[in-house]
């Protein structure tokens, strides 16, 4: 297949997908209002265009299927058949089938076996003709864009050269029989995304190079030089601005499928829901449109499943039987705002409170002190779900926390407001682009770092009236009555702790707030994020690196990784976070594992896979009690059996500290706490070497920071040392 043929095919696939998206949109409109003639015409045009080009490219099965669909649509359009929800479902299945065929064609550059004969037969039955209905292609006078459509039938009847081979290039010179407003003077062209990304990078580089030059300009005196400099400055700024625009797309491009999604989800849940969309023309970076697609679908799913009530409940509450979800996007102060508002039952703070306490997300004391608005925000906590029943749609415990973590991953924020009885509004704020990031350049331990501003709440100076204090050796900071856990930036990334901490950066992410301690801050800069490269890809504490105006390389701190460490040390349930993270970053997590490092005894370090751990808690040693030979501890109202790692491994008889850390494992059916001296850290690494060890419960070793650490298999350990605890049914 020649390059030109491939190009035509690629063009056809892209165009057909757009047409299918439009069909889907209009079908939902039509289902709502069967008299919407413009929608019907648009659907007809879309399928007609696909059919025409499929014939032109010799894609017989596709042509046949779309032809049958077109016949049905033609009868609908001519008013010979009434439009029913059954037909809507049938036509939506046609859309799916065509999409599937396009996928096959994209992968194999050719059609496969005809798998849609049943659907074609069903469509034909629905058309209910038997008679030779006039082919719609020949009778399309109603279509306004008729002139553009006209060439299609001619091409269609031209002898097809080979079933799967594409038409010869000369024919390709003719404009594709597109149904839209595509004319030879169409002011848009398709460009490879790779080329655009490269352009964005180069424009960013140009601006950096210019900024470097700016340092010397102050010494220039020649007016000619200065004028040239001015010009260079302007042009490079404009260039960057325009190039950034090429990546901008209306957010509505990702919304085309939503009415369909809402329709399908609502019918699955036995509810009536319609979606109203506003601000679809709001532009943002195309990579971000991709990135918010999943969170948005998740949020809609939540709104339909948990937010909107059943039709009978709604009628009882004096609402319309049909619920409404309003999706709105707009620009404000350099950011894109997205609101998803439903007019459902709202979230009841008292139910959230009860659930949060039951799930151990917060303590009863803390819950009692929280405002209603803050209580509602608890739904963003990992593992939280207020749904009484787990349905196929949602309620599996990974819900809003996934939405939040996905949005925070792209430097955005989410918030939730709810009025019981009136509905819930989810507000998402995201940056316009990912390529350039506003960041604060700070110094810690003699080295500069860039900290993205998105998660930064405030900067507080450390002085005599606001000193760093310690709780059990853990540094904390008192900020307007709140206790903020502190992390030293230099120490957190792996350097020696800073000797001159002077500034606390208050960072909020992943539902935790913590203070990042630095020496001082230099400047805020718009930075271009660059990857660290193969040699440093294991270092999760960095989100990349950037080049500053002075040419220096500066590491970008990944506050989310640091937050995860705070989370761990701060006795917060982490199991669901892990699930959410794995859910979010399925790709790169394949070989890497997150391991929790613990200390047992003087020098013993052990690693436990994070996925084996439900939660981590710290309890006073005297809280451990013996009942009938078993060690137990009371934790959040439950009695938890405890296995001491020292006993299980028969290691040392060292004097136990006043506090022990419990790693709670639920893998064995019953939750068991494994007591260790101290939880040290979480590391992401690839277990390098494994060998069998004679000790039960130890599966191998890993190298961490140059030292050997034994890898523990908690379920195995529990099974071998406390078999009665792992016998209960999972």
């Amino acid at each position: 297949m020649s390059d030109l043929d491939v190009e035509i095919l690629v063009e056809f696939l892209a165009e057909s997908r757009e047409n299918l998206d439009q069909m889907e949109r209009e079908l939902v409109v039509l289902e709502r209002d069967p008299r919407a003639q413009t929608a019907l015409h648009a659907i007809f045009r879309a399928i007609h265009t696909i059919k025409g080009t499929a014939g032109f490219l010799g894609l017989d099965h596709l042509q046949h299927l779309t032809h049958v669909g077109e016949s049905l649509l033609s009868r609908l359009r001519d008013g010979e058949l009434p439009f029913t929800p059954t037909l809507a479902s049938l036509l939506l299945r046609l859309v799916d089938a065509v999409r599937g065929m396009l996928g096959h064609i994209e992968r194999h550059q050719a059609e496969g076996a005809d798998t849609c004969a049943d659907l074609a037969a069903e469509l034909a039955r629905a058309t209910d003709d038997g008679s030779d209905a006039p082919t719609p292609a020949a009778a399309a006078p109603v279509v306004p864009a008729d002139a553009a459509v006209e060439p299609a039938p001619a091409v269609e009847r031209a002898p097809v050269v080979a079933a799967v081979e594409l038409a010869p290039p000369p024919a390709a010179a003719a404009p594709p029989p597109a149904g839209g407003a595509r004319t030879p003077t169409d002011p848009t062209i398709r460009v490879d995304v790779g080329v655009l990304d490269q352009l964005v990078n180069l424009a960013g580089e140009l601006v950096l190079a210019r900024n470097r030059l700016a340092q010397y300009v102050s010494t220039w005196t020649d007016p000619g030089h200065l004028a040239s400099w001015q010009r260079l400055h302007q042009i490079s700024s404009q260039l960057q601005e325009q190039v950034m625009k090429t990546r901008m797309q209306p957010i509505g491009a990702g919304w085309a499928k939503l009415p369909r999604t809402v329709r399908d989800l609502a019918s699955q849940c036995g509810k009536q829901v319609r979606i109203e969309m506003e601000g679809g023309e709001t532009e943002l970076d195309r990579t971000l449109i991709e990135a918010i697609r999943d969170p948005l679908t998740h949020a809609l799913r939540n709104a339909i499943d948990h937010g909107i009530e059943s039709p009978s409940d709604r009628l009882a509450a004096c609402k319309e039987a049909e619920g409404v979800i309003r999706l709105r996007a707009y620009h404000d102060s350099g950011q894109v705002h997205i609101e998803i508002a439903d007019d459902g039952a709202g979230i009841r703070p008292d139910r959230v409170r009860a659930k949060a306490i039951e799930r151990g997300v917060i303590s009863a004391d803390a819950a009692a002190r929280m405002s209603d608005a803050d209580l509602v925000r608890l739904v963003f906590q990992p593992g939280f779900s207020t749904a009484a029943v787990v349905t196929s749609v949602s309620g599996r415990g990974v819900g809003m926390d996934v939405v939040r973590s996905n949005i925070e991953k792209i430097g955005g924020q989410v918030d939730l407001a709810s009025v019981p009885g009136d509905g819930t509004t989810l507000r998402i704020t995201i940056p316009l682009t990912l390529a350039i990031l506003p960041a604060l350049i700070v110094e810690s331990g003699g080295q500069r770092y860039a900290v993205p501003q998105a998660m930064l709440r405030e900067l507080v100076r450390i002085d005599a009236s606001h000193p760093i204090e310690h709780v059990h050796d853990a540094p904390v900071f008192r900020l307007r009555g709140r206790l903020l856990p502190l992390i030293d930036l230099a120490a957190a990334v792996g350097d020696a702790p800073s000797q001159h901490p002077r500034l606390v950066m208050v960072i909020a992410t992943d539902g935790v707030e913590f203070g990042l301690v630095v020496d001082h801050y230099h400047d805020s800069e718009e930075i271009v994020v660059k990857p660290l490269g193969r040699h440093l890809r294991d270092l999760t504490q960095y989100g990349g690196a950037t080049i500053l105006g002075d040419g220096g390389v500066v590491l970008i701190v990944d506050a989310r990784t640091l937050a995860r460490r705070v989370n761990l040390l701060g006795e917060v349930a982490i199991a669901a976070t892990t699930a959410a993270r794995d859910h979010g970053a399925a790709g790169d997590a394949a070989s890497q594992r997150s391991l929790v490092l613990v200390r047992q005894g003087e020098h013993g370090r052990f690693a436990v896979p994070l996925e084996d751990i439900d939660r981590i808690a710290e309890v006073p040693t005297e809280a451990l009690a013996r009942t009938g030979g078993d060690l137990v501890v009371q934790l959040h109202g439950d009695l938890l059996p405890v296995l001491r790692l020292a006993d299980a491994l028969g290691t040392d008889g060292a004097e136990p500290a006043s506090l022990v850390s419990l790693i709670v494992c639920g893998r064995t059916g019953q939750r068991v706490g494994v007591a260790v001296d101290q939880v040290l850290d979480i590391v992401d690494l690839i277990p390098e070497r494994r060998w069998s060890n004679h000790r039960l419960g130890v599966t191998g070793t890993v190298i961490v920071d140059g030292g050997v650490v034994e890898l523990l298999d908690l379920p195995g350990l529990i099974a071998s040392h406390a078999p009665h605890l792992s016998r209960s049914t999972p």
Partner: protein
Amino acid sequence: MTRLCTFALADRLLAIDADQIREIVTLRDLTAVPGSPRHVRGLVNLRGQIVACIDLGVLLAFDCPPTSKQLAVVVADGDELVSMAVDRVVDVIELDPGDIEPVPPTVPRVVADSSIGIYQGSPQLLLILDLGHLLEVSSPRLEVS
């Protein structure tokens, strides 16, 4: 004939395939990366591209302090660039592959595994390094055993 670039590092004479060298640069403003493996000296800005700098002495466990020299050879590692610090670039020579002898078995494994062989013809013994292997051992491997 094989074209080799010879360089000095910690009183040793080493060589890598000259055709794989993109350029030789003077390192300025090396940014250290806390938490990185010891053989990664840091990151440098190479005309807008961020490039890691490897200390071969540390990687090959030569008995010498980490190099403080500012000279580095830049090689391609797939679609990325990597620089390797050296004390001094000596020469570019052409060798008949037949003159390259295997590394004696008494040479430490870490060096032997990263070498193609030894050439006796130069005033000082020349250790010819296997660049592909060096790049592989210096970056974290993806596969899990």
